[in-house]
């Protein structure tokens, strides 16, 4: 099949960008969307033009590196699919396809479709972990975990950090990403010891980046390639309220004499 692409081209963070039209004349239905772009890029290189830059790595839908808007939808119209797993059989001959980067103030554009998502790393470093130094663990079966909780934690932990939730949200909120990590860890008994500090730290880190607030629109869940539920946002809010209500001033002394 033959497609017409309209792609956002921007040579650098501060350069102006614009949509550029490309012909994709030989698209095979078995190609992935990124393989279709690979072929377009090969032609561009042969014409001595810079290829379209996009982040990608595993191409199996798990690393979270890829992601851009396809016809206005993060990762394209196929539900629960990253753009690397979106196959061309979902398009038809003559389609015009609009390809743009994920847009959010907190995700500045680096080049073409490549964006900077380091804000996510900063949110994780503000509490998205359980403080267990290597070597300090007890036997793995010493702490029993209810299967239901283990399953819910796994559902939340499946997040790949691609940023589609932010791109789809009219407020560019990172609540689904942050809520998923808080849920994953706070649902587990191992995570309870620092549950309050975690939710406070992560929510405050999220608020200090340039993400918007959550207004329960639900676009995030709709585009999430891993189907992460917005229940995780509700859980984050509950945990946050309970953490700030029970907040006590730091107790002093620790080092002792």
């Amino acid at each position, binding site marked *: 099949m033959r497609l017409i692409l309209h792609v956002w081209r921007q040579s650098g963070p501060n350069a102006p960008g614009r949509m550029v039209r490309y012909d994709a004349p030989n698209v095979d239905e078995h190609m992935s969307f990124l393989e279709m772009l690979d072929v377009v890029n090969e032609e561009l290189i042969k014409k001595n033009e810079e290829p379209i830059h996009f982040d990608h*790595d595993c191409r199996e839908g798990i690393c979270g590196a890829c992601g851009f808007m396809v016809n206005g939808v993060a990762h394209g119209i196929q539900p629960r699919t990253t753009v690397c797993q979106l*196959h061309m059989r979902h398009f038809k001959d003559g389609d015009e396809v609009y390809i743009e980067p994920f847009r959010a103030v907190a995700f500045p554009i680096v080049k073409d479709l490549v964006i900077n998502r380091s804000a996510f790393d900063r949110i*994780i470093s503000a509490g998205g*972990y359980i403080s267990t130094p290597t070597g300090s663990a007890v036997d793995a079966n010493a702490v029993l975990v209810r299967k239901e909780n*283990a399953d819910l934690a796994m559902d939340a932990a499946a997040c790949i950090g691609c940023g589609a939730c932010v791109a789809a949200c009219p407020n560019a909120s990172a609540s689904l990403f942050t809520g998923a990590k808080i849920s994953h860890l706070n649902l587990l008994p191992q995570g309870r010891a620092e549950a309050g500090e975690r939710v406070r730290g992560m929510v405050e880190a999220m608020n200090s980046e340039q993400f918007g607030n959550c207004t329960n629109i639900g676009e995030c869940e709709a585009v999430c390639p891993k189907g992460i539920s917005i229940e995780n946002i509700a859980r984050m809010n509950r945990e946050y309220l309970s953490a700030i209500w029970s907040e006590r001033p730091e107790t002093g002394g620790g080092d002792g004499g």
Partner: protein
Amino acid sequence: MPEVLTTPITSPKLDSRIPEGPIQDKWETAQFKMKLVNPANKRKYKVIVVGSGLAGGAAAASLGELGYNVKCFTYNDSPRRAHSIAAQGGINAAKNYQNDGDSVYRLFYDTVKGGDYRAREANVYRLAQVSVNIIDQCVAQGVPFAREYGGTLANRSFGGAQVSRTFYARGQTGQQLLLGAYQALMRQVDAGTVTLFPRTEMLDVIVVDGRARGIVTRNLLTGQIDVHMADCVILGTGGYGNVFYLSTNAKNCNATAAWRAYKRGAYFANPCFTQIHPTCIPVSGEYQSKLTLMSESLRNDGRIWVPKNAGDQRRASQIPEDERDYFLERRYPAFGNLVPRDVASRAAKAVCDEGRGVGPSGLGVYLDFADSIHRLGRHKIEERYGNLFEMYESITGENPYEAPMRIFPAVHYTMGGLWVDYNLMSTVPGLFVGGEANFSDHGANRLGASALMQGLADGYFVLPYTIGNFLADHRPDKLDEHCPEALEALTNVKDITKRLISVNGKSTVDELHRHLGKVMWNKCGMARNAAGLQEAISEIRAIREEFWKDVKVVGTDGDLNHTLEKANRVADFMELGELICRDALTRAESCGGHFREEYQTPEGEAKRDDENFSFVSAWEYKGASIDPELHKEHLTFEHVKPSQRSYK
């Protein structure tokens, strides 16, 4: 003086530093003998970790916790994206939670045997020992492993093991383990002990007075080339499967860090030990950019077959039971569909060579779940493999609940890598290597669910000790970033970058890489022979020459330039490919993933030659146009006596 020895002896340059004593005490003895760094002095030591996957990420986090001053580098935009994330099936550990007869010794035994007696016993034993600590550590970090209704951890049997020792998190075990390590790492970033360098690629090692003292990196966003000095360097940079162009590796996985270290004096061990995974989705066309693995766990419930008659074009559902050949069950009645990867892959190739392959290309076999769905119900299969079935359908457009999957072997993992001693130090003092990037634990074939185990063993439980031992012997002295060795390495990197851009030929990097990959796959893939390998070597040389004459890199070296990054990596694959073929040619036996057609039993099984090849080959770089020199580390087996592997 003794006569010439018939068995190769260990080259004097290869001191494996295996501790004395009974095998079960070696690691404890070594740990006790290791020198310690005073807690107050740890922050004065700079440690560079290249890579943020299971080995690199776990090592950087653990060393940060200990108080060292750590810098961690990754080419990705975030450490959470390292390719460890794509491992699906699980992680082995000798917990014996299932009371089915597992033990440290059994895991050790299975791993040495599975590796076809080409791994070091002492290393493998330590791996089996620390496997139990890994599970404890990961659970404490919040890794959501599968659990039973009583709240205990669930296990499954995996990839040829007859005990259930594999822990898993749905089909995303690698992801969850990596996120555990990533979170531990980010905690140290917050604590200020680890500095992260995302989108930064290592392009050279700086060796001063014979010791690794730093690296040269390129900032992938700005093109800036920098020197970073340190007291030691750890590489956790993964394997080199992408030398074949098509593999299950991520697109950006590369051998550049390991290869540049090789050129600075680190020996490259067993490069020809590459693993072909039996259950991948077949190639669909020339544009194909990578291959996708379908977890080996599928073989627990799926049955592999092809039609009995060559050229049978009927759909799977129209082929009656008595015209199907369940070739693994037929050839290996004891293990059936669960034979190790190398055996399963070769058997699939054999039936395709007979013209009995399925699918449009004829390069595929069926993996059929009909019996299991009938026996257990669709619901149970969905619970076990739901995400894998979804992934298969999204890629192929076929529903595996209704028609059998089509699978074919693909390059997946590389057992070879930089040579390391028992302490995971390469032949360059101060340069340590962990995870898939080293050669140490899997011999000639890796068992399923053992890669995650080894990466984390190296990162959490081996390197934190051995790094301390090394540093305790060296003062934390400041080295000038402008020392001649650093400037020389910096100039070297700048020269390579300039050269790549200045060729300005007509062939794209991908075209040249694909060409190399075809030669590698056809002549150094699942089956190899001397004539083919010799041809491959001369063909690779020709492609390499063409690369440097005709490669086209557009754009500049002053900003994000994916073409330039790729060209840099492919340039190294062009050299590594030749070394792989050379190693395969030298090893005139069949073992594990290395199958030489000249050396097989009448039934077509691999025929090892323990008398002449019970060694690790370690290649020393001698210069650009000089042949590398082969050193041999002789392997001795005191516990697991080499025998013909039999899965019949």
